[in-house]
């Protein structure tokens, strides 16, 4: 039986008169890859910030990794990983310094850091570059390194905010292989993206329009429902109803 690691019910966030996130409800199971789609300004980022414990909701309920987003944000922060579209690594630190730093702020012990770090570098094929500054790595490597660092502390859930922005299709494919491997290890992946081909890789996707979730199903289910053979088409049909612009 699968257990839900993210549950939201009527989760709402208002900024003044503006309702950025309008009573969304969803649940994500352990080990699932959940695609969180929506046009710019649809409210994705706001929703994600609430799940990460960065922003208090205005109304509604949500639990992430079993903790309440209203009251247990510190516990949530310890149980999740996060990677944003902009690299989350420090350019002027070496590969291994970045690993040590992030492991350090998540409270990993010295032995643990060394062991996991070495294993990670080996998997990434970066052992030879461990002393190199991150600045000198090609973008694809940086990105895979950033993802590995984000899950180094073995979080239950990892939030990826448009992780593949601005990289080429081959690198993106490589990156998704890493996401699958993480999911196989039981890490839930909550990912926002603009690339509809990536939506096809997800177990389930939701599409947000004007702060509301207008569709939530498996990619196949969505295509069937809208009688089309591409997620892109589904997305465009729903997004066109949007009244809100950026």
């Amino acid at each position: 039986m699968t257990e839900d690691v993210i549950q939201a019910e009527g989760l709402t966030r208002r900024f003044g008169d503006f309702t950025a996130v309008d009573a969304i409800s969803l649940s994500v199971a352990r080990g699932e890859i959940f695609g969180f789609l929506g046009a710019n300004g649809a409210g994705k980022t706001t929703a994600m910030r609430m799940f990460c414990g960065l922003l208090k909701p205005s109304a509604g309920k949500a639990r992430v990794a079993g903790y309440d987003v209203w009251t247990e944000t510190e516990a949530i922060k310890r149980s999740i990983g996060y990677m944003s579209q902009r690299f989350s690594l420090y350019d002027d630190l070496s590969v291994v310094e970045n690993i040590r730093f992030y492991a350090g702020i998540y409270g990993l012990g010295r032995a643990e850091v060394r062991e996991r770090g070495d294993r990670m570098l080996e998997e990434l094929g970066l052992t030879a570059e461990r002393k190199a500054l991150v600045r000198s790595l090609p973008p694809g490597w940086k990105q895979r390194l950033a993802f590995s660092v984000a899950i180094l502390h073995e979080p239950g859930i990892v939030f990826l905010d448009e992780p593949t922005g601005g990289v080429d299709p081959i690198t993106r494919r490589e990156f998704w292989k890493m996401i699958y491997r993480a999911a196989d290890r039981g890490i839930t992946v909550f990912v926002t993206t603009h690339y509809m081909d990536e939506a096809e890789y997800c177990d389930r996707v939701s599409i947000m329009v004007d702060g509301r979730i207008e569709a939530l199903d498996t990619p196949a289910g969505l295509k069937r429902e809208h009688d089309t053979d591409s997620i892109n088409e589904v997305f465009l049909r729903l997004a066109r109803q949007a009244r809100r612009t950026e």
Partner: protein
Amino acid sequence: MKQFLQFVKKEFIHILRDPRTLIILVGMPMVQILIFGFALTNEVKNARFVYVDHSGDPMSHRLIQRLEASRYFESAGAVTGPEGIDRAFRRGVCRIALVVPADFEAATRRPDGATVQLIADASDPNTANTLVNYAEAVVADFSRELAGPAQPPFSIRSETRMRYNPQLKGAYNFVPGVMAMVLLLVCTMMTALTVVREKEMGTMEVMLVSPMRPLRIILAKAVPYLLVSFFNITTILLLSVFVLDVPIRGHVGLLFAESALFTGVALSLGLLISTATASQQTAMFISLIGMFLPTIMLSGFMFPIENMPLPLRVLSNVVPARWFFVIVRSVMIKGTGIAAVWKETLVLAGMFVFFTTLAVRKFKLRLE
């Protein structure tokens, strides 16, 4: 705590790995103190003087020759009356003038002795002060020589007039001034820049999602700059004492404690700027315009506050450097203790509490 140390270590790597930052942080204070120090050097050589000789007797000639013969002074000729001196000052011909009264020789033999006048252009108070000291020494020397073993009644005294800036405000100003400027640069600007850089790079977001508490992040950012500041204060003081011969008359510990307080104010201002800005350029701009200009113009470092028009005098009260400046000058140059500067210290402490509270509030608000 380990988390915190890891963060501090990372900040140090940022500083050490960027040569430009390192040069600004550590090199600039030294360069500044040396430039200011040597621009306002105490060494006097061949300074030109004019004289007004109302007496014209052999004794007055000897005195003038004596002054000219010393390696410090060089005659720029005789002038007539106060207008002549004024003209020479204004044209920049010389910075000091000697006035010998009528009947000089006769006066030297009277019991109360003779008095010559030394008039200095004190628009540059440091130089004026030095010149007058040297000239007085020459006159005193001359007087002692004339008197021989028979001490007074034979004497020449000198009387000095400082033109343009009679109270000599501004003497020894540069060391306290440079200290205030350097601490502001290191703490305010650099702190603001490093926080904003993390915002720009997106790493701040990751920090905030991490279990690291926001306040700790801020604190960890401040620690390296606090340490760098202490290093800078030490360098400045060492250079002042050993290279520039500016004394530390007061308690060194008190000087450091006050510097730490001022550093705290500067740090809190940097954090405040960083919470209000989104780009490094803006942060830099605000730091420069909002912090540096007032520090240079309104702290009393360059221009005496007493001479400012009332609105600027009032405005100068909100410039933290103004208070720090008074403290450093008192402790360092005048050798006073906490009793003399408790008021200024209290003002700085108040500013520290105020800015820190504001910065933390704004920082938390931004998170909400």
